């Protein structure tokens, strides 16, 4: 016995909307005006997503977008009775359950965070020594141009001051055994700071010379910057930052404002990393100063003077330097003063006035 039911049919080749009769015989026959347009095997029929109340069917082997729309409840039940694999359609399940998505996202996050936490620093440590010094210098040149524009300061070189600086630099390099020659340059900026660039350039800003109460303070800061050069901290930083940015880029994407979460995560991570490298540079400085027979404590005192008290500050976890109090304590512990100062009193005065 065959029964006839009404449906709407699109053949997926032409956009014509056909009112058809379904004949449920040996196959599902789609008929229009008595002619069979298509015959579907019952095992090939699949249900696909559709508006509520509508049963939408496609068939394996038919044109990709060919489909039947059935609104009548009785017809829908008949189809369900005849077609055994109705609910097998991949499209119905293609996107997985919400729980699945949450689970896989969690796994992906754990893997990405693990890579960022362990993988990236490891890769940076291994890759940085492989970068030729010539490349490092190129990176340094690029950064130097920016520094000069940003600080807008003139290079300072009063003859006596420059001579004192050169002497200081030579003694420091002799004692520290740097892996590449360094050049120290003073810049007339009020900011109390000093920094090194990849390739061996070290800048000291006039603001820091002004704040210093003894030459050992400056000596310590420069030794610390040499520590960064020795450890290739810039290269490691560049490699790590690139890796972290890329990996975190996998998360969030366009969730509005989600970028800020990534930013906070990145800040915490790089802060933690950089606290470590700063501590290493401090240790290098202490070593160098010990070889020169000069005390390490003054450098810690200068830092504390520049930053102010940090211990009771808010959000100390975000600091990219170890707290000044802790650094002072560590440096004091390493203090070994056995030799005369590097510069004479006059030379030190000239160095302090190098920008005047």
């Amino acid at each position, binding site marked *: 016995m065959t029964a006839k039911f009404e449906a709407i049919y699109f053949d997926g080749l032409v956009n*014509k909307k056909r009112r058809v009769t379904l004949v449920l015989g040996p196959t599902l026959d789609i008929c229009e005006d008595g002619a069979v347009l298509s015959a579907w095997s019952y095992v090939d029929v699949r249900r696909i997503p559709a508006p509520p109340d509508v049963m939408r069917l496609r068939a394996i082997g038919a044109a990709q977008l060919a489909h039947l729309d059935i609104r009548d409840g009785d017809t829908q039940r008949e189809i369900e009775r005849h077609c055994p694999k109705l609910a097998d359609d991949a499209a119905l399940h*293609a996107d997985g359950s919400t729980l699945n998505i949450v689970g896989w996202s969690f796994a992906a996050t754990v893997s990405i965070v693990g890579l960022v936490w362990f993988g990236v620093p490891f890769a940076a440590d291994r890759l940085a020594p492989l970068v030729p010094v010539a490349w490092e210098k190129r990176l340094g040149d690029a950064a130097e141009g920016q520094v000069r524009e940003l600080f807008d300061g003139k290079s300072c070189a009063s003859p006596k001051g420059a001579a004192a600086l050169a002497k200081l630099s030579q003694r420091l390099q002799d004692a520290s055994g740097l892996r590449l020659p360094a050049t120290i340059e003073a810049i007339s900026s009020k900011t109390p700071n000093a920094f090194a660039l990849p390739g061996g350039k070290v800048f000291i800003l006039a603001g820091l010379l002004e704040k210093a109460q003894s030459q050992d303070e400056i000596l310590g800061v420069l030794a610390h910057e040499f520590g960064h050069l020795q450890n290739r901290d810039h290269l490691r930083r560049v490699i790590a930052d690139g890796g972290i940015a890329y990996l975190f880029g996998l998360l969030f994407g*366009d969730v509005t404002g*989600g970028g800020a979460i990534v930013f906070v995560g990145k800040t915490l991570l790089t802060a933690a990393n950089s606290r470590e490298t700063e501590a290493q540079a401090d240790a290098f400085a202490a070593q160098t100063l010990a070889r020169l027979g000069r005390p390490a404590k003054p450098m810690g005192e200068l830092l504390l003077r520049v930053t102010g008290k940090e211990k009771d500050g808010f959000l100390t976890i975000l600091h990219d330097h170890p707290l000044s109090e802790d650094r002072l304590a560590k440096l004091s512990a390493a203090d070994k003063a056995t030799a005369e100062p590097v510069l004479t009193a006059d030379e030190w005065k000239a160095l302090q006035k190098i920008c005047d």
Partner: protein
Amino acid sequence: MNDMTMEAAQRAPESSDIVFTGHDDEFRDLLFKGAPLEIVTVGFYRFWLATKIRQHLWSHTILDGDAFAYLGTARELLIGFFFAMAILAPIYLASFLLGVEVEREKSFASLLIGVFFVAFWQFATYRARRYRLHRTAWRGLRFQMDGSGLSYALRAMGWELLTIISLGLALPWMQAALERYKMRHTYYGELRGDFVATGDNFFKHGWRLWVGAALTTTTFFAGPVLTGITKEAGWLLLMLPTLAATVFIYARYKALQWKWWLEGVCIGDVRATSTLERHALSGNYWTFTGLLFASVVAALTVALAIGLMPKIPGIILGVLIYLALIVQYSILWRTYFVQRVWRIVVNSLTIHNLHAAQEVAMRLDASPPTALGEGFADSLDVVGF
């Protein structure tokens, strides 16, 4: 019947209804579930949410009794995104190394490399549009798009440069040119698209908005200088009026742009007219602004209260509030910039000559597009729906 009326009957376009039947509540439920899930899945749910949103919008848009169908899947978007990230990795590295070399010549010259990424962004949006069109069907027949993303990106860059130089005056002609390119490469089955609206027409209706925008910008930046009050005080005073003017101008601009675009689009002989009024989107954007403003004020109030709290619970509460703000913004944005606009715009439409789109045959497409374009767009932080 005399000849005159015969001719009039032939000329009078047959018109068909297009309606949006989706309920605001349904869409809200979709977002209330999806937006928090995006946070929980650190963003990976965005592919699923975007797909659900499109399915909702497409399937509730009914032309002449039949709904549009969105055939894309979240999995395609996810894979597209991963491929894009893989392809972009060496590009990022190359741009960094090139940047270093350029910097050595001239400081900050590497910012120019940003231009490359703007062009790439244009390429990505073109490919993303291609993907979306190809996953759109009506009456069992797909939309399609060909043309070259590269060619489009070059045109777009040229026009953008011109628009910047002309302080935005070239914008109408830029949009006309770019829409022409996109629509002439758009197909519904064998029917080819076209874009017939002109930049002149857009300019004629929109030049007042340009003047308004210019006045607002000038007042905001030059006002404090001219009146001699301090910069900070001036900006504080001008902030609210500027915001109001911006919302007003933007809402008018979008309404005008939609109407102009819709009435310029054709597929074969099928055309559309829109009854969208100048102020049709104003209420929508004002609601968005009001809700956003209220939530920011509320968040700031709580943030002040947190300052008085002990440190650790304060931080935890702060993080929670921040996450809530993100969720809320994501919901507001998708509601007022996507669904409401879609509903208002679709319901303003009448389609003409739909009989020209009866019995359209399938167009053979040698290479169906992947979601790679969307992946590029997503990884470059393009917000799209």
